[in-house]
Protein backbone atom coordinates (compact mmCIF):
# COMPACT_ATOMS: atom_id res chain seq x y z
CA UNK A 1 0.00 0.00 0.00
CA UNK A 2 2.72 2.41 1.03
CA UNK A 3 4.78 1.32 -1.95
CA UNK A 4 1.91 2.13 -4.27
CA UNK A 5 1.54 5.68 -2.90
CA UNK A 6 5.29 6.24 -3.12
CA UNK A 7 5.29 5.12 -6.74
CA UNK A 8 2.42 7.47 -7.58
CA UNK A 9 4.21 10.26 -5.74
CA UNK A 10 7.38 9.68 -7.75
CA UNK A 11 5.49 9.70 -11.05
CA UNK A 12 3.59 12.85 -10.01
CA UNK A 13 6.85 14.56 -9.13
CA UNK A 14 8.41 13.68 -12.49
CA UNK A 15 5.29 14.98 -14.27
CA UNK A 16 5.42 18.22 -12.28
CA UNK A 17 9.06 18.74 -13.25
CA UNK A 18 8.19 18.23 -16.92
CA UNK A 19 5.24 20.64 -16.59
CA UNK A 20 7.46 23.32 -15.04
CA UNK A 21 10.47 22.92 -17.37
CA UNK A 22 9.33 25.26 -20.22
CA UNK A 23 8.96 28.08 -17.64
CA UNK A 24 12.61 27.70 -16.68
CA UNK A 25 14.32 26.79 -19.94
CA UNK A 26 15.01 28.62 -23.19
CA UNK A 27 13.52 27.76 -26.58
CA UNK A 28 16.43 25.56 -27.56
CA UNK A 29 16.03 23.18 -24.63
CA UNK A 30 12.26 23.13 -24.96
CA UNK A 31 12.78 22.03 -28.56
CA UNK A 32 15.31 19.39 -27.48
CA UNK A 33 13.02 17.90 -24.86
CA UNK A 34 10.11 17.88 -27.32
CA UNK A 35 12.27 15.69 -29.61
CA UNK A 36 13.03 13.71 -26.46
CA UNK A 37 9.31 12.94 -26.13
CA UNK A 38 9.39 11.40 -29.62
CA UNK A 39 12.19 9.11 -28.47
CA UNK A 40 10.31 8.42 -25.24
CA UNK A 41 7.25 7.06 -27.06
CA UNK A 42 9.46 5.12 -29.47
CA UNK A 43 11.61 3.58 -26.73
CA UNK A 44 8.51 2.72 -24.68
CA UNK A 45 6.84 1.07 -27.69
CA UNK A 46 9.98 -1.01 -28.24
CA UNK A 47 10.10 -1.95 -24.55
CA UNK A 48 6.45 -3.02 -24.76
CA UNK A 49 7.43 -5.60 -27.35
CA UNK A 50 10.82 -6.72 -26.04
CA UNK A 51 10.40 -6.35 -22.32
CA UNK A 52 6.92 -7.80 -21.94
CA UNK A 53 6.32 -10.36 -24.66
CA UNK A 54 9.99 -11.11 -25.31
CA UNK A 55 9.85 -10.57 -29.09
CA UNK A 56 12.77 -8.57 -30.44
CA UNK A 57 12.37 -6.12 -33.30
CA UNK A 58 14.86 -3.94 -35.12
CA UNK A 59 12.14 -2.34 -37.22
CA UNK A 60 10.88 0.16 -34.64
CA UNK A 61 12.69 3.20 -36.08
CA UNK A 62 11.61 2.17 -39.58
CA UNK A 63 8.02 1.92 -38.35
CA UNK A 64 8.24 5.43 -36.93
CA UNK A 65 9.50 6.56 -40.34
CA UNK A 66 6.66 4.72 -42.04
CA UNK A 67 4.13 6.41 -39.76
CA UNK A 68 5.75 9.76 -40.50
CA UNK A 69 5.70 9.26 -44.26
CA UNK A 70 2.14 7.90 -44.23
CA UNK A 71 0.95 10.87 -42.22
CA UNK A 72 2.86 13.47 -44.25
CA UNK A 73 1.80 12.01 -47.60
CA UNK A 74 -1.86 11.66 -46.66
CA UNK A 75 -1.90 15.30 -45.54
CA UNK A 76 -0.15 16.38 -48.74
CA UNK A 77 -2.10 14.30 -51.27
CA UNK A 78 -5.48 13.60 -49.68
CA UNK A 79 -5.74 17.01 -48.05
CA UNK A 80 -6.41 15.56 -44.60
CA UNK A 81 -5.89 17.79 -41.57
CA UNK A 82 -2.65 16.78 -39.75
CA UNK A 83 -4.56 15.14 -36.89
CA UNK A 84 -6.26 12.71 -39.30
CA UNK A 85 -2.90 12.30 -41.01
CA UNK A 86 -1.48 11.14 -37.68
CA UNK A 87 -4.33 8.64 -37.41
CA UNK A 88 -3.53 7.38 -40.90
CA UNK A 89 0.11 6.96 -39.88
CA UNK A 90 -0.91 4.97 -36.80
CA UNK A 91 -3.19 2.75 -38.90
CA UNK A 92 -0.59 2.09 -41.60
CA UNK A 93 2.19 1.31 -39.12
CA UNK A 94 -0.14 -0.81 -36.99
CA UNK A 95 -1.42 -2.71 -40.03
CA UNK A 96 2.10 -3.48 -41.27
CA UNK A 97 3.05 -4.47 -37.73
CA UNK A 98 0.09 -6.86 -37.69
CA UNK A 99 1.22 -8.39 -40.98
CA UNK A 100 4.85 -8.73 -39.81
CA UNK A 101 3.71 -10.14 -36.48
CA UNK A 102 1.53 -12.66 -38.29
CA UNK A 103 4.27 -13.68 -40.75
CA UNK A 104 6.95 -14.07 -38.09
CA UNK A 105 4.91 -16.13 -35.61
CA UNK A 106 7.23 -19.11 -35.95
CA UNK A 107 10.39 -17.07 -35.49
CA UNK A 108 12.02 -15.87 -32.32
CA UNK A 109 15.34 -14.55 -31.05
CA UNK A 110 18.03 -14.02 -33.66
CA UNK A 111 15.80 -15.21 -36.52
CA UNK A 112 13.21 -12.61 -35.60
CA UNK A 113 15.96 -9.99 -35.26
CA UNK A 114 17.23 -10.76 -38.75
CA UNK A 115 13.74 -10.73 -40.29
CA UNK A 116 12.89 -7.38 -38.73
CA UNK A 117 16.24 -5.93 -39.86
CA UNK A 118 15.32 -7.02 -43.38
CA UNK A 119 11.87 -5.44 -43.15
CA UNK A 120 13.36 -2.24 -41.77
CA UNK A 121 15.96 -1.99 -44.51
CA UNK A 122 13.41 -2.77 -47.24
CA UNK A 123 11.27 0.10 -45.92
CA UNK A 124 14.24 2.46 -45.80
CA UNK A 125 15.43 1.50 -49.28
CA UNK A 126 11.91 1.92 -50.68
CA UNK A 127 11.58 5.36 -49.09
CA UNK A 128 14.91 6.32 -50.67
CA UNK A 129 14.22 4.81 -54.09
CA UNK A 130 10.67 6.10 -54.65
CA UNK A 131 11.88 9.66 -54.90
CA UNK A 132 8.91 10.89 -56.97
CA UNK A 133 6.75 10.26 -53.93
CA UNK A 134 9.11 10.80 -50.99
CA UNK A 135 11.76 13.16 -52.41
CA UNK A 136 14.29 10.41 -51.59
CA UNK A 137 17.20 11.21 -49.31
CA UNK A 138 16.67 14.98 -49.83
CA UNK A 139 13.75 14.71 -47.45
CA UNK A 140 10.07 15.54 -47.65
CA UNK A 141 8.63 18.84 -46.44
CA UNK A 142 5.82 18.22 -43.97
CA UNK A 143 2.87 20.38 -42.93
CA UNK A 144 3.15 21.65 -39.34
CA UNK A 145 0.87 20.04 -36.78
CA UNK A 146 -0.11 23.37 -35.23
CA UNK A 147 -0.49 26.43 -37.45
CA UNK A 148 2.01 28.97 -36.03
CA UNK A 149 2.45 26.80 -32.94
CA UNK A 150 5.04 28.09 -30.49
CA UNK A 151 7.77 25.89 -29.05
CA UNK A 152 6.03 25.57 -25.70
CA UNK A 153 2.68 24.72 -27.31
CA UNK A 154 4.36 21.82 -29.11
CA UNK A 155 6.11 20.89 -25.90
CA UNK A 156 2.89 20.58 -23.88
CA UNK A 157 1.15 18.77 -26.73
CA UNK A 158 3.98 16.21 -26.96
CA UNK A 159 4.07 15.87 -23.18
CA UNK A 160 0.33 15.20 -23.11
CA UNK A 161 0.52 12.62 -25.88
CA UNK A 162 3.50 10.90 -24.24
CA UNK A 163 1.73 10.69 -20.89
CA UNK A 164 -1.43 9.43 -22.60
CA UNK A 165 0.55 6.77 -24.50
CA UNK A 166 2.32 5.62 -21.35
CA UNK A 167 -0.96 5.52 -19.43
CA UNK A 168 -2.55 3.46 -22.20
CA UNK A 169 0.40 1.08 -22.31
CA UNK A 170 0.47 0.70 -18.53
CA UNK A 171 -3.27 0.08 -18.43
CA UNK A 172 -2.95 -2.55 -21.15
CA UNK A 173 0.00 -4.24 -19.49
CA UNK A 174 -1.72 -4.29 -16.09
CA UNK A 175 -4.83 -5.89 -17.60
CA UNK A 176 -5.25 -9.58 -18.42
CA UNK A 177 -3.63 -8.91 -21.79
CA UNK A 178 -0.41 -7.87 -20.07
CA UNK A 179 -0.43 -11.14 -18.17
CA UNK A 180 -0.92 -13.02 -21.43
CA UNK A 181 2.09 -11.18 -22.86
CA UNK A 182 4.29 -12.04 -19.91
CA UNK A 183 3.17 -15.65 -19.85
CA UNK A 184 4.17 -15.95 -23.52
CA UNK A 185 7.55 -14.39 -22.72
CA UNK A 186 8.19 -16.82 -19.89
CA UNK A 187 6.99 -20.02 -21.55
CA UNK A 188 5.13 -20.06 -24.83
CA UNK A 189 4.08 -23.70 -24.70
CA UNK A 190 3.06 -23.44 -21.07
CA UNK A 191 0.93 -20.37 -21.83
CA UNK A 192 -0.72 -22.13 -24.77
CA UNK A 193 -1.49 -25.18 -22.64
CA UNK A 194 -3.27 -22.94 -20.13
CA UNK A 195 -5.51 -21.55 -22.82
CA UNK A 196 -3.70 -18.35 -23.81
CA UNK A 197 -4.26 -17.67 -27.50
CA UNK A 198 -0.55 -17.36 -28.26
CA UNK A 199 -0.99 -16.73 -31.98
CA UNK A 200 -3.42 -13.88 -31.44
CA UNK A 201 -1.52 -12.09 -28.69
CA UNK A 202 1.87 -12.37 -30.36
CA UNK A 203 0.39 -10.72 -33.46
CA UNK A 204 -1.53 -8.10 -31.49
CA UNK A 205 1.54 -7.16 -29.45
CA UNK A 206 3.47 -6.45 -32.64
CA UNK A 207 0.62 -4.37 -34.07
CA UNK A 208 0.17 -2.33 -30.87
CA UNK A 209 3.89 -1.69 -30.56
CA UNK A 210 4.28 -0.56 -34.17
CA UNK A 211 1.12 1.57 -33.99
CA UNK A 212 2.68 3.55 -31.11
CA UNK A 213 5.89 3.84 -33.14
CA UNK A 214 3.85 5.13 -36.08
CA UNK A 215 2.23 7.76 -33.87
CA UNK A 216 5.64 8.87 -32.57
CA UNK A 217 6.96 9.12 -36.12
CA UNK A 218 3.95 11.11 -37.31
CA UNK A 219 4.27 13.58 -34.42
CA UNK A 220 7.97 13.99 -35.09
CA UNK A 221 7.45 14.58 -38.82
CA UNK A 222 4.79 17.25 -38.27
CA UNK A 223 6.90 18.91 -35.59
CA UNK A 224 10.27 19.03 -37.37
CA UNK A 225 8.42 19.51 -40.70
CA UNK A 226 11.00 17.47 -42.56
CA UNK A 227 11.28 13.72 -42.89
CA UNK A 228 14.18 11.77 -44.42
CA UNK A 229 14.86 8.05 -44.89
CA UNK A 230 17.76 8.33 -42.42
CA UNK A 231 15.29 8.29 -39.51
CA UNK A 232 14.57 4.69 -40.53
CA UNK A 233 18.21 3.59 -40.44
CA UNK A 234 19.64 0.90 -38.20
CA UNK A 235 21.86 3.51 -36.52
CA UNK A 236 18.71 5.32 -35.44
CA UNK A 237 17.34 1.97 -34.24
CA UNK A 238 20.54 1.53 -32.25
CA UNK A 239 19.91 4.83 -30.49
CA UNK A 240 16.35 3.81 -29.61
CA UNK A 241 17.59 0.44 -28.33
CA UNK A 242 20.27 2.13 -26.24
CA UNK A 243 17.71 4.53 -24.74
CA UNK A 244 15.35 1.72 -23.76
CA UNK A 245 18.20 -0.41 -22.38
CA UNK A 246 19.73 2.41 -20.36
CA UNK A 247 16.36 3.47 -18.97
CA UNK A 248 15.27 -0.12 -18.35
CA UNK A 249 13.39 -2.05 -21.01
CA UNK A 250 11.39 -4.20 -18.60
CA UNK A 251 9.16 -1.21 -17.84
CA UNK A 252 7.65 1.15 -20.42
CA UNK A 253 7.88 4.20 -18.14
CA UNK A 254 11.58 3.62 -17.42
CA UNK A 255 12.26 3.14 -21.13
CA UNK A 256 10.45 6.42 -21.88
CA UNK A 257 12.45 8.24 -19.19
CA UNK A 258 15.58 6.77 -20.78
CA UNK A 259 14.47 8.25 -24.10
CA UNK A 260 13.98 11.79 -22.80
CA UNK A 261 17.02 11.90 -20.54
CA UNK A 262 19.41 10.52 -23.14
CA UNK A 263 18.17 12.92 -25.79
CA UNK A 264 18.86 15.76 -23.33
CA UNK A 265 22.28 14.33 -22.45
CA UNK A 266 23.21 13.89 -26.10
CA UNK A 267 22.39 17.55 -26.76
CA UNK A 268 24.05 18.72 -23.56
CA UNK A 269 27.32 16.97 -24.39
CA UNK A 270 27.53 18.49 -27.86
CA UNK A 271 31.00 19.91 -27.22
CA UNK A 272 32.29 16.35 -27.00
CA UNK A 273 31.41 15.96 -30.69
CA UNK A 274 31.28 12.41 -31.98
CA UNK A 275 32.79 11.08 -28.77
CA UNK A 276 29.49 11.45 -26.93
CA UNK A 277 28.08 8.65 -29.08
CA UNK A 278 31.07 6.50 -28.12
CA UNK A 279 30.38 7.16 -24.44
CA UNK A 280 26.72 6.42 -25.10
CA UNK A 281 27.56 3.06 -26.72
CA UNK A 282 29.94 2.17 -23.91
CA UNK A 283 27.33 2.94 -21.26
CA UNK A 284 24.80 0.78 -23.13
CA UNK A 285 27.22 -2.15 -23.14
CA UNK A 286 28.04 -1.74 -19.45
CA UNK A 287 24.37 -1.50 -18.49
CA UNK A 288 23.43 -4.56 -20.51
CA UNK A 289 26.31 -6.50 -19.00
CA UNK A 290 26.08 -5.36 -15.38
CA UNK A 291 22.69 -3.76 -14.77
CA UNK A 292 20.12 -5.51 -16.96
CA UNK A 293 17.21 -3.61 -15.39
CA UNK A 294 18.58 -0.29 -16.59
CA UNK A 295 19.36 2.84 -14.58
CA UNK A 296 15.81 3.72 -13.55
CA UNK A 297 14.89 0.08 -12.99
CA UNK A 298 17.85 -0.41 -10.67
CA UNK A 299 17.13 2.81 -8.76
CA UNK A 300 13.50 1.77 -8.35
CA UNK A 301 14.58 -1.70 -7.18
CA UNK A 302 16.95 -0.23 -4.58
CA UNK A 303 14.28 2.17 -3.29
CA UNK A 304 11.66 -0.59 -3.10
CA UNK A 305 14.13 -2.81 -1.25
CA UNK A 306 14.90 -0.09 1.30
CA UNK A 307 11.24 0.54 1.87
CA UNK A 308 10.50 -3.16 2.38
CA UNK A 309 13.38 -3.47 4.85
CA UNK A 310 12.37 -0.43 6.87
CA UNK A 311 8.83 -1.87 6.89
CA UNK A 312 10.18 -5.10 8.40
CA UNK A 313 12.01 -3.23 11.15
CA UNK A 314 8.83 -1.72 12.54
Amino acid at each position, binding site marked *: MKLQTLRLLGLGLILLVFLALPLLLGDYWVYTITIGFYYAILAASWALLVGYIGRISFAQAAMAGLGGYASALSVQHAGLPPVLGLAAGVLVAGALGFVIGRLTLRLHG*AYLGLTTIAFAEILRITA*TAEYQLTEGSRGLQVEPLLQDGSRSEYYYLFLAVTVACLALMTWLLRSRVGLFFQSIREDEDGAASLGVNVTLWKTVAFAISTAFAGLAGGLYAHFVQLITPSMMSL*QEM*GIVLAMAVIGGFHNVVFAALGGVSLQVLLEGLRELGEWRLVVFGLITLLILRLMPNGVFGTVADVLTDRLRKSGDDK
Partner: protein
Amino acid sequence: MSLVAILEQALNGLIVSSFYALAALGLAIIFGVLRVVNFAHGELYMLGGYAYFLAVASMGLPPVVGIVVAAAALAAMGALVEWLLIRPVYDGRADRPEEYSIMITFALSILLLNLANSLFGPWPRRPEPLFRGGVEIGELIVSGDRLAAAGVAVVLIAVLLAALRYTWAGRAVRAVSQNREAAAIFGISVTRVGMLAFATGAALAGLAGALMGPVFNVVPPMGVIPVIKAYVIVVLGGLGSIPGAIMGAIILGQVESFATILIPDPSRALAYKDAYGLVLLVGILLLRPQGLFGTKERRA
Protein backbone atom coordinates in the same frame (compact mmCIF):
# COMPACT_ATOMS: atom_id res chain seq x y z
CA MET B 1 21.70 -9.62 -73.93
CA SER B 2 24.89 -10.89 -75.53
CA LEU B 3 26.84 -13.87 -74.28
CA VAL B 4 29.79 -11.70 -73.27
CA ALA B 5 27.52 -9.47 -71.19
CA ILE B 6 25.98 -12.50 -69.49
CA LEU B 7 29.43 -13.94 -68.76
CA GLU B 8 30.56 -10.58 -67.43
CA GLN B 9 27.60 -10.40 -65.06
CA ALA B 10 28.21 -13.98 -63.95
CA LEU B 11 31.93 -13.37 -63.32
CA ASN B 12 31.22 -10.16 -61.42
CA GLY B 13 28.70 -12.08 -59.38
CA LEU B 14 31.29 -14.76 -58.58
CA ILE B 15 33.90 -12.20 -57.51
CA VAL B 16 31.40 -10.51 -55.22
CA SER B 17 30.36 -13.93 -53.91
CA SER B 18 33.89 -14.73 -52.74
CA PHE B 19 33.98 -11.59 -50.56
CA TYR B 20 30.51 -12.25 -49.23
CA ALA B 21 31.46 -15.84 -48.42
CA LEU B 22 34.48 -14.78 -46.38
CA ALA B 23 32.40 -12.47 -44.19
CA ALA B 24 29.49 -14.91 -43.98
CA LEU B 25 31.71 -17.86 -42.94
CA GLY B 26 32.74 -15.94 -39.84
CA LEU B 27 29.10 -15.45 -38.89
CA ALA B 28 28.37 -19.11 -39.57
CA ILE B 29 31.23 -20.38 -37.38
CA ILE B 30 30.26 -18.07 -34.52
CA PHE B 31 26.62 -19.10 -34.73
CA GLY B 32 27.48 -22.77 -35.07
CA VAL B 33 29.54 -22.88 -31.89
CA LEU B 34 27.94 -20.20 -29.72
CA ARG B 35 24.36 -20.01 -31.11
CA VAL B 36 24.88 -16.25 -31.20
CA VAL B 37 24.22 -14.12 -34.27
CA ASN B 38 26.96 -11.53 -34.17
CA PHE B 39 25.18 -8.28 -35.00
CA ALA B 40 28.53 -6.46 -34.72
CA HIS B 41 30.05 -8.47 -37.58
CA GLY B 42 29.90 -5.55 -40.01
CA GLU B 43 31.88 -3.37 -37.60
CA LEU B 44 34.54 -6.09 -37.20
CA TYR B 45 34.74 -6.09 -41.00
CA MET B 46 35.17 -2.30 -40.91
CA LEU B 47 37.91 -2.53 -38.26
CA GLY B 48 39.71 -5.03 -40.50
CA GLY B 49 39.68 -2.38 -43.22
CA TYR B 50 41.15 0.19 -40.82
CA ALA B 51 43.78 -2.25 -39.48
CA TYR B 52 44.89 -2.80 -43.09
CA PHE B 53 44.86 0.94 -43.76
CA LEU B 54 46.96 1.70 -40.67
CA ALA B 55 49.46 -1.04 -41.49
CA VAL B 56 49.82 -0.22 -45.18
CA ALA B 57 49.28 3.54 -45.45
CA SER B 58 50.52 4.74 -42.05
CA MET B 59 53.25 2.24 -41.22
CA GLY B 60 54.29 1.57 -44.83
CA LEU B 61 54.11 -2.21 -44.63
CA PRO B 62 53.57 -4.22 -47.85
CA PRO B 63 49.90 -5.08 -48.59
CA VAL B 64 50.33 -8.80 -47.90
CA VAL B 65 51.66 -8.05 -44.41
CA GLY B 66 48.78 -5.59 -43.98
CA ILE B 67 46.30 -8.43 -44.50
CA VAL B 68 48.07 -10.59 -41.92
CA VAL B 69 48.10 -7.69 -39.45
CA ALA B 70 44.35 -7.16 -39.95
CA ALA B 71 43.63 -10.84 -39.35
CA ALA B 72 45.76 -10.95 -36.20
CA ALA B 73 44.35 -7.73 -34.77
CA LEU B 74 40.76 -8.82 -35.33
CA ALA B 75 41.40 -12.31 -33.92
CA ALA B 76 42.68 -10.70 -30.71
CA MET B 77 39.73 -8.34 -30.66
CA GLY B 78 37.30 -11.22 -31.22
CA ALA B 79 38.78 -13.20 -28.34
CA LEU B 80 38.48 -10.15 -26.09
CA VAL B 81 34.85 -9.52 -27.07
CA GLU B 82 33.98 -13.16 -26.44
CA TRP B 83 35.62 -13.10 -23.02
CA LEU B 84 34.09 -9.80 -21.88
CA LEU B 85 30.66 -9.78 -23.46
CA ILE B 86 29.59 -13.11 -24.95
CA ARG B 87 30.48 -15.45 -22.12
CA PRO B 88 27.40 -14.64 -19.98
CA VAL B 89 25.27 -16.09 -22.81
CA TYR B 90 26.23 -19.66 -21.97
CA ASP B 91 27.58 -19.65 -18.43
CA GLY B 92 24.16 -18.87 -16.94
CA ARG B 93 24.92 -15.31 -15.82
CA ALA B 94 22.51 -13.66 -18.28
CA ASP B 95 18.85 -13.76 -17.39
CA ARG B 96 17.58 -14.17 -20.93
CA PRO B 97 20.66 -15.30 -22.83
CA GLU B 98 19.20 -15.06 -26.31
CA GLU B 99 17.87 -11.52 -25.94
CA TYR B 100 21.09 -10.56 -24.19
CA SER B 101 23.26 -11.86 -27.02
CA ILE B 102 21.25 -10.00 -29.65
CA MET B 103 21.24 -6.71 -27.77
CA ILE B 104 24.84 -6.83 -26.61
CA THR B 105 26.23 -7.46 -30.11
CA PHE B 106 23.91 -4.81 -31.58
CA ALA B 107 25.06 -2.32 -28.92
CA LEU B 108 28.68 -3.29 -29.64
CA SER B 109 28.14 -2.48 -33.31
CA ILE B 110 26.87 1.00 -32.40
CA LEU B 111 29.86 1.54 -30.11
CA LEU B 112 32.45 0.40 -32.67
CA LEU B 113 30.88 2.41 -35.50
CA ASN B 114 30.96 5.62 -33.46
CA LEU B 115 34.41 4.84 -32.10
CA ALA B 116 35.76 4.51 -35.64
CA ASN B 117 33.97 7.73 -36.58
CA SER B 118 35.68 9.56 -33.70
CA LEU B 119 39.11 7.97 -34.03
CA PHE B 120 39.55 7.94 -37.79
CA GLY B 121 37.08 10.60 -38.92
CA PRO B 122 34.15 10.13 -41.28
CA TRP B 123 36.09 10.69 -44.52
CA PRO B 124 36.87 7.74 -46.79
CA ARG B 125 40.43 6.33 -47.07
CA ARG B 126 41.88 4.37 -49.93
CA PRO B 127 44.94 2.28 -48.99
CA GLU B 128 47.15 0.62 -51.60
CA PRO B 129 45.47 -2.52 -53.04
CA LEU B 130 47.14 -5.90 -53.48
CA PHE B 131 47.32 -5.49 -57.23
CA ARG B 132 46.61 -2.74 -59.73
CA GLY B 133 45.45 -2.64 -63.36
CA GLY B 134 43.01 -4.60 -65.49
CA VAL B 135 43.09 -8.27 -66.43
CA GLU B 136 41.76 -9.58 -69.73
CA ILE B 137 40.24 -13.04 -69.87
CA GLY B 138 39.35 -13.60 -73.52
CA GLU B 139 36.94 -10.76 -74.26
CA LEU B 140 36.19 -10.04 -70.61
CA ILE B 141 37.96 -7.26 -68.79
CA VAL B 142 38.07 -7.41 -65.01
CA SER B 143 39.74 -4.93 -62.70
CA GLY B 144 42.86 -6.50 -61.23
CA ASP B 145 42.41 -5.40 -57.64
CA ARG B 146 39.03 -7.11 -57.44
CA LEU B 147 40.28 -10.29 -59.07
CA ALA B 148 43.34 -10.45 -56.78
CA ALA B 149 41.22 -9.86 -53.67
CA ALA B 150 38.74 -12.52 -54.82
CA GLY B 151 41.60 -14.95 -55.45
CA VAL B 152 43.00 -14.41 -51.95
CA ALA B 153 39.50 -14.83 -50.52
CA VAL B 154 39.04 -18.17 -52.30
CA VAL B 155 42.44 -19.41 -51.03
CA LEU B 156 41.57 -18.33 -47.48
CA ILE B 157 38.23 -20.11 -47.62
CA ALA B 158 39.98 -23.28 -48.83
CA VAL B 159 42.50 -23.03 -45.97
CA LEU B 160 39.68 -22.56 -43.48
CA LEU B 161 37.74 -25.55 -44.79
CA ALA B 162 40.89 -27.71 -44.61
CA ALA B 163 41.60 -26.53 -41.07
CA LEU B 164 38.04 -27.34 -40.00
CA ARG B 165 38.34 -30.79 -41.53
CA TYR B 166 41.84 -31.91 -40.62
CA THR B 167 43.14 -30.06 -37.54
CA TRP B 168 42.25 -30.97 -33.98
CA ALA B 169 40.93 -27.46 -33.27
CA GLY B 170 38.79 -27.56 -36.41
CA ARG B 171 37.31 -30.89 -35.39
CA ALA B 172 36.62 -29.50 -31.93
CA VAL B 173 34.78 -26.56 -33.48
CA ARG B 174 32.65 -28.88 -35.58
CA ALA B 175 32.01 -31.17 -32.64
CA VAL B 176 30.77 -28.33 -30.43
CA SER B 177 28.58 -27.06 -33.29
CA GLN B 178 26.94 -30.47 -33.57
CA ASN B 179 26.41 -31.18 -29.91
CA ARG B 180 27.68 -29.06 -27.08
CA GLU B 181 27.13 -31.52 -24.24
CA ALA B 182 28.55 -34.51 -26.08
CA ALA B 183 31.63 -32.50 -27.05
CA ALA B 184 32.13 -31.49 -23.42
CA ILE B 185 31.80 -35.11 -22.29
CA PHE B 186 34.55 -36.08 -24.74
CA GLY B 187 36.90 -33.64 -23.06
CA ILE B 188 36.62 -30.61 -25.30
CA SER B 189 36.70 -27.31 -23.42
CA VAL B 190 33.58 -25.64 -24.83
CA THR B 191 34.67 -22.32 -23.33
CA ARG B 192 37.98 -22.38 -25.15
CA VAL B 193 36.35 -23.51 -28.40
CA GLY B 194 33.83 -20.69 -28.02
CA MET B 195 36.64 -18.19 -27.74
CA LEU B 196 38.45 -19.76 -30.69
CA ALA B 197 35.28 -19.64 -32.77
CA PHE B 198 34.63 -15.98 -32.02
CA ALA B 199 38.28 -15.08 -32.67
CA THR B 200 38.23 -16.98 -35.97
CA GLY B 201 34.94 -15.41 -36.99
CA ALA B 202 36.24 -11.93 -36.19
CA ALA B 203 39.48 -12.62 -38.06
CA LEU B 204 37.48 -13.72 -41.12
CA ALA B 205 35.41 -10.54 -40.96
CA GLY B 206 38.64 -8.54 -40.60
CA LEU B 207 40.21 -10.34 -43.57
CA ALA B 208 37.17 -9.59 -45.70
CA GLY B 209 37.38 -5.92 -44.65
CA ALA B 210 41.12 -5.78 -45.37
CA LEU B 211 40.62 -7.26 -48.83
CA MET B 212 37.64 -5.06 -49.69
CA GLY B 213 38.87 -1.83 -48.11
CA PRO B 214 41.24 -0.93 -50.93
CA VAL B 215 38.75 -2.03 -53.62
CA PHE B 216 35.94 0.18 -52.38
CA ASN B 217 36.78 2.60 -49.57
CA VAL B 218 37.70 2.35 -45.92
CA VAL B 219 35.08 4.41 -44.09
CA PRO B 220 33.28 3.86 -40.74
CA PRO B 221 29.89 2.71 -42.15
CA MET B 222 31.55 0.41 -44.73
CA GLY B 223 30.36 -2.69 -42.88
CA VAL B 224 26.66 -1.85 -42.78
CA ILE B 225 25.71 -3.14 -46.23
CA PRO B 226 28.10 -6.17 -46.42
CA VAL B 227 26.95 -7.48 -43.06
CA ILE B 228 23.34 -7.47 -44.21
CA LYS B 229 24.46 -9.53 -47.22
CA ALA B 230 26.22 -11.85 -44.82
CA TYR B 231 22.98 -12.28 -42.84
CA VAL B 232 21.13 -13.10 -46.06
CA ILE B 233 23.79 -15.66 -46.96
CA VAL B 234 23.89 -17.48 -43.63
CA VAL B 235 20.10 -17.57 -43.47
CA LEU B 236 19.91 -18.81 -47.06
CA GLY B 237 22.35 -21.61 -46.34
CA GLY B 238 21.04 -22.34 -42.85
CA LEU B 239 22.42 -20.58 -39.78
CA GLY B 240 25.61 -22.25 -38.64
CA SER B 241 26.12 -24.33 -41.78
CA ILE B 242 29.54 -23.91 -43.43
CA PRO B 243 28.72 -25.38 -46.86
CA GLY B 244 25.42 -23.50 -46.67
CA ALA B 245 27.26 -20.20 -46.24
CA ILE B 246 29.37 -20.86 -49.34
CA MET B 247 26.37 -21.90 -51.46
CA GLY B 248 24.41 -18.92 -50.12
CA ALA B 249 27.20 -16.54 -51.15
CA ILE B 250 27.28 -17.94 -54.68
CA ILE B 251 23.50 -17.70 -55.01
CA LEU B 252 23.32 -14.13 -53.65
CA GLY B 253 26.16 -12.93 -55.91
CA GLN B 254 24.31 -14.20 -58.98
CA VAL B 255 20.89 -12.97 -57.87
CA GLU B 256 22.22 -9.45 -57.29
CA SER B 257 24.20 -9.47 -60.49
CA PHE B 258 21.26 -10.44 -62.68
CA ALA B 259 18.25 -9.06 -60.81
CA THR B 260 19.48 -5.50 -61.45
CA ILE B 261 18.49 -5.99 -65.09
CA LEU B 262 14.84 -6.65 -64.12
CA ILE B 263 13.93 -3.01 -63.37
CA PRO B 264 14.19 -0.90 -66.55
CA ASP B 265 14.69 2.52 -64.85
CA PRO B 266 18.47 2.40 -64.15
CA SER B 267 18.63 4.81 -61.19
CA ARG B 268 15.82 3.01 -59.45
CA ALA B 269 17.35 -0.38 -60.27
CA LEU B 270 20.54 0.75 -58.55
CA ALA B 271 18.65 2.03 -55.52
CA TYR B 272 16.84 -1.28 -55.13
CA LYS B 273 19.99 -3.40 -55.66
CA ASP B 274 20.49 -3.97 -51.95
CA ALA B 275 16.84 -4.88 -51.43
CA TYR B 276 16.83 -8.11 -53.49
CA GLY B 277 18.86 -9.99 -50.92
CA LEU B 278 16.58 -8.74 -48.16
CA VAL B 279 13.48 -9.98 -49.95
CA LEU B 280 15.27 -13.31 -50.33
CA LEU B 281 16.08 -13.25 -46.60
CA VAL B 282 12.49 -12.61 -45.57
CA GLY B 283 11.22 -15.27 -47.98
CA ILE B 284 13.62 -17.92 -46.69
CA LEU B 285 12.97 -17.11 -43.04
CA LEU B 286 9.24 -17.33 -43.51
CA LEU B 287 9.13 -20.43 -45.70
CA ARG B 288 12.16 -22.45 -44.63
CA PRO B 289 13.80 -20.95 -41.52
CA GLN B 290 16.37 -23.74 -41.36
CA GLY B 291 17.72 -22.60 -44.75
CA LEU B 292 18.97 -24.84 -47.52
CA PHE B 293 21.44 -26.83 -45.41
CA GLY B 294 20.52 -26.15 -41.79
CA THR B 295 19.10 -28.70 -39.42
CA LYS B 296 15.44 -28.30 -38.60
CA GLU B 297 14.51 -27.16 -35.12
CA ARG B 298 10.99 -27.30 -33.78
CA ARG B 299 10.86 -23.55 -33.51
CA ALA B 300 13.27 -21.31 -35.35
